[in-house]
């Protein structure tokens, strides 16, 4: 119990730092630290799958994205700070938010004591999905439509980011061209870490059906490895209108839709898997899905096309 108290105090302390820090860069550093502390909180809440996602996606990729952005926007700090709202407004906002938090705390304490849960039902029906990890069973079987729509959401966010590019560079390459400095340090770590990362990513995706893990966590690690390689200049971003890239992005959701539609015939409902080979079907969905999500996440970090494909 003492550990939890210390952890919560740390989390709140780092969160206050993230809000109160004057410099955006420092605030983002605080945010990344907060993400790692939250990973510990998720482990304490007995949710290893979520701990993996929080550390890989919540503090890893989001932190990287925000770090890059705060570096680029550093010179716009001065203009923004003069619009800081007056002390009175800040006080009112503080009181309002404190009330909101207090209300939330009261509500959490009001939650009914025999907490209603779906765990028994999830475990009872898990045999039909052929999976071992109940969280993956919820993601891929019970609430498969959520996961499907969510991958389409990711794809749409990418289309939205690509639509920000000026017309003249459409079809070009996202992100600035970084040249590999052969004896540079970043190249060394990229050459060393990327293979390990790919191995870990595939392992985490593969083990997801029976143990904590899954395609989102695995895909995030694969995307992180691509981002590292592209930062080290080892690999360049693909052209935005390249057919191969578009296929890679769409193959995951397309296979998911296709197998979902075959569910009509084989198991009587959309996204229903016949019990005999449910696990095989889910795995055939998960492999291309991991590929598509990894590509989408990596390109979300890379940003809109900036360079015409010629150079």
């Amino acid at each position, binding site marked *: 119990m003492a550990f939890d108290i210390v952890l919560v105090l740390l989390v709140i302390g780092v969160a206050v730092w993230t809000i109160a820090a004057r410099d955006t860069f420092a605030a983002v550093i605080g945010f990344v630290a907060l993400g790692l502390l939250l990973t510990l909180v998720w482990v304490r809440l007995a949710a290893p799958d979520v701990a993996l996602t929080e550390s890989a996606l919540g503090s890893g990729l989001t932190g990287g994205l925000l770090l890059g952005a705060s570096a680029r926007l550093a010179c716009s700090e001065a203009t923004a700070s003069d619009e800081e709202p007056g002390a009175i407004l800040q006080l009112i906002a503080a009181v309002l938010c404190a009330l909101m938090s207090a209300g939330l705390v009261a509500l959490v304490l009001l*939650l009914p004591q025999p907490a209603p849960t779906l765990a028994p039902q999830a475990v009872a029906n898990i045999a039909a999905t052929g999976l071992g990890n109940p969280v993956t069973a919820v993601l891929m079987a019970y609430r498969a439509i959520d996961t499907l729509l969510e991958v*389409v959401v990711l794809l*749409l966010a990418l289309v939205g980011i690509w639509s920000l590019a000026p*017309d003249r560079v459409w079809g070009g390459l996202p992100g600035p061209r970084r040249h590999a400095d052969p004896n540079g340090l970043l190249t060394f770590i990229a050459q060393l870490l990327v293979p390990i990362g790919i191995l870990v990513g595939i392992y985490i995706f593969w083990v997801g059906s029976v143990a904590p893990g899954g395609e989102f966590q695995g895909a995030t690690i694969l995307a992180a490895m691509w981002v590292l390689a592209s930062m080290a200049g080892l690999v360049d971003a693909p052209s935005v209108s390249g057919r191969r890239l*578009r296929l890679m992005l769409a193959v995951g959701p397309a296979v998911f839709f296709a197998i979902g539609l075959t569910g009509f015939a084989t198991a009587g*409902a959309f996204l229903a898997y016949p019990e005999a080979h449910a696990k095989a079907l889910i795995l055939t969905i998960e492999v291309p899905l991991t590929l598509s999500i990894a590509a989408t996440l990596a390109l979300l970090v890379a940003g809109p096309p900036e360079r015409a494909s010629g150079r």
Partner: protein
Amino acid sequence: MPSSATAGGFLLVLAIVLPAAGVLFSLVLGGRHAERIALGLMPAGLTVAWAIGATVWRTHSALKYYVGNWDPPLGIAFRADGLSAAMMMASSLLICGIGLFARGQFSTRPGAEQRAPLVFWVLLLSIWGALNAVFVGSDLFNLYVALELLTFAAVPLVSLDGRAETLSAALRYLLFALFGSILYLLGAVLLYGAYGTLDTVLLSGRIRPEPIAWAAVALMTTGLLAKAALYPFHLWLPPAHAGAPAPASAILSGLVVKAPFFLVVRLWFDVMPRLPEHAAAQLLGALGATAIILGSVVALRQARLKLLIAYSTVAQIGYLFLMFPLAVNPETGQPWTTAAWTGGILQAVSHAFAKAAMFMAAGLIAEALGHDRIAGLAGIGRALPITVFAFGLGGMSLMGLPPSGGFVAKAMLLTAAVAAGQWWWAVVVLAGGLLAGGYIFLVLARALADASEPLPLLSTITPGRQAVVIALALGAVLLGFVPLRPLELLQIGRPDIAAIEGLK
């Protein structure tokens, strides 16, 4: 394995899968084919939506579908009652109209893939899929993902032409929308914590009038109001809808803003029919009334046509929320039988048609003149008679002049206000109609004035696009012939519909 659904259940799945498949094909095949795929899918989507409406009308009961044969609370259910069928039919019609209109502006030119056409057609299909997912969804978290799908499809439309002010408008829209969806999620988690399910039908059975339920619904409603741009949260709407290209602002103002309103209706009338006591509904009505007055007054003072129409959207959204204090009166027990319920939904549908027609007309005028300053509109009435006539028809529906859909909706709201004894809403409805008349007349007077020198038209507007605009405006007018009593289709599938004897 429980029986998965009623007969037409798979149609609900098709309504979501078709547009999503279109998005994937457009992405893979590239920009040159995106337009063909989108236009090819429109008749199919139209037939699916109207087939759902016909099945709901024929069986006189809501369509139900358990995805993956998992019944709630573990699985996710799709449910289409009369209300969602009506909204799906209207939105499919509107999207086909917008698609036909957009062929002029976003046609795919030969040669390399263009940015704007690909992005527009992909986002148009995504908005359609997201709208259908919102209308048929019956699980709170599934509705959250559908709302996010809608937001991510709508925000890039605002900054499609890349100008600086549209970028800042899109960013502000995104921040408001994200603030809304995170509050919605906070409410959903409280409901799950208290009642153990996220399915709306099960929730309506388990929910009890206790602080956690009120707090959850208050948070979710606030979040949805932020996304629907009701009065305190309307700041992002005018620059976003005015800055977007014409077909995009037509779909943003017509349909995208209606989805969060639809969820507030679903939340208040389906999830907690007995819970909302009078005060909260009065508050929503008061916010709606303020939106009507404020939106109309600010619209009167606008110099640019598209901003005027955008502020008119802020006002007309206020009408939608007038429905809550009138339709939710505890005495009669069944709020939906009163005219207010039908009036509110009819206002949503007729406003969608009228506003889409007006934004498209404004787009054509801006294309022809090169600017959309109201002061410089003189002579456009002679140059583009059909477009200005369509703008007038749309304005007629906003004002609530017979025989337009707006008239029927506002008349029903008026009768409900008088019947419920809350006369102040009647005053607001009339004042709103008067002010709407003001700014519509402002525009028409300038447009129909004869210009001193002949008007230099930058580009000739093909009659085909004007035909689409006039068709949508006529759609808003045809809605005026709906009988002036509670529409039976909208009552199908209400939670305890059987309780009321015949439809009064």
